């Protein structure tokens, strides 16, 4: 039976996504055993993040200052705005290292059944940015779910009068995917979005 502080640590670790009580115990033991190389740097990093982590005032990304690195990067194209549902989606896009514009994090998707309306999302700030930053294209990188696409339609309607091209990510066969293993919905979407080869 671990001491109270260790027990607290295990209890807290067990509340993290992907960890249960057993894996939390293993993680706590590993931390204690690697005190110098893991536990102390981790504690310092966590204290630092706890003190400084905050939401970017412009895009909603999480960083350590009022304006995140992406929003302050002069090499980023401010006229192309990619709208994502969450910070996790923004980070996923960044991992691809393809998009060189800026982002806007909605903070969720519209869901009438869950009582999430337009007023619960970062829509006004997005509209303001589009007006202020002379945005020439809005890319809707929202999930291919019922709620995600409902939100995409809502934003597209909202921006209709501004005359800005609004595009969305393609849906279809994933890289490395084989048709035999795809569900019928994905095949339908892929067929609808087929493109000319030559």
């Amino acid at each position, binding site marked *: 039976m671990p001491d109270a502080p260790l027990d607290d640590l295990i209890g807290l670790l067990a509340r993290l*996504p*992907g960890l249960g009580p057993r894996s939390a115990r293993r993680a706590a033991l590993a931390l204690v055993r690697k005190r110098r190389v893991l536990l102390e740097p981790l504690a310092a990093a966590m204290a630092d993040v706890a003190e400084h982590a905050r939401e970017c005032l412009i895009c909603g990304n999480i960083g350590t200052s009022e304006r995140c690195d992406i929003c302050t990067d002069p090499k980023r194209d401010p006229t192309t705005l990619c709208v994502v549902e969450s910070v996790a989606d923004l980070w996923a896009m960044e991992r691809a290292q393809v998009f060189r514009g800026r982002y806007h994090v909605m903070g969720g998707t519209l869901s*009438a*059944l*869950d*009582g999430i*309306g337009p007023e619960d999302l970062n829509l006004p700030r997005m509209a303001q940015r589009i007006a202020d930053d002379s945005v020439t294209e809005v890319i809707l990188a929202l999930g*291919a*779910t*019922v709620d995600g*696409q*409902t939100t995409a*339609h*809502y934003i597209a*309607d909202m921006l209709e009068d501004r005359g800005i091209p609004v595009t969305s990510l393609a*849906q279809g066969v994933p890289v490395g995917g084989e048709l035999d293993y795809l*569900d*019928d*919905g*994905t095949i*339908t*979407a892929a067929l*609808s979005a087929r493109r000319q080869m030559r």
Partner: protein
Amino acid sequence: MIEWREQGILLAVRRHGEANAIIEVLTRDHGLHAGVVRGGASRKQAPLLQVGAQLDLTWRARIEDHIGSFVVEPVRSRAVPIMADRAALAALQSVAALLTTCIAERQPVEEVHDRTYALLDTLARQPDWPQLYAQWELSLLADLGFGLDLSCCAVTGVTQQLRYVSPRTGRAVSQQGAGEWADRLLPLPLFLLMGGDASAQETADALRLTGHFLRQWLGPTLTRSNALDARDQAARAIVGQMVKAAGTPTG
């Protein structure tokens, strides 16, 4: 162990813990039924569990009162073909919200199921789906015991020229019977009685009619669950899309 197998329409999905999901489905013989799907929130299964999906379900529980667990096999998705249609997506969400809120759990609802099945298969596929949606709402009111009496005029008793519905009683009123009260009554579009094509204005009138009675008779229940919001958003999207397509404003 209790077990049954049947096909059903997925109406709601809620994450349960990290990997599992609790789903609500509408089946013909077992009505509205909830259950846990192990791994339902996983990367593999979550994309298949989209509202509107037709699923092959096997439900198991130790005793009848338990929520039990589902093993699901996707039959086909209904959401994917309508992703590009805002009104159809909103209608799908409205149907799911109204049913999960209004239908009693685990009671066989063959007619509701069959009508819903038919409606969902027309969304964005048949040009008259907005009218079918309005008729579905009208039928749902009847299934829930709040049917409108559109058989004859509440004032004169005639069965012809029925043009209005009393917002208080839900009974039809003829053009002649309405008299000077016409502006206080709800317009009754002809397609709700006879079927056939309808204009954007008639569809808007039909949705105003069904919306009024859903609000009047089921208001507190629907408001509590946000289903009324979903339904009103669908009505706005449907009418908005029809108006845009026709290029004529509604009254």
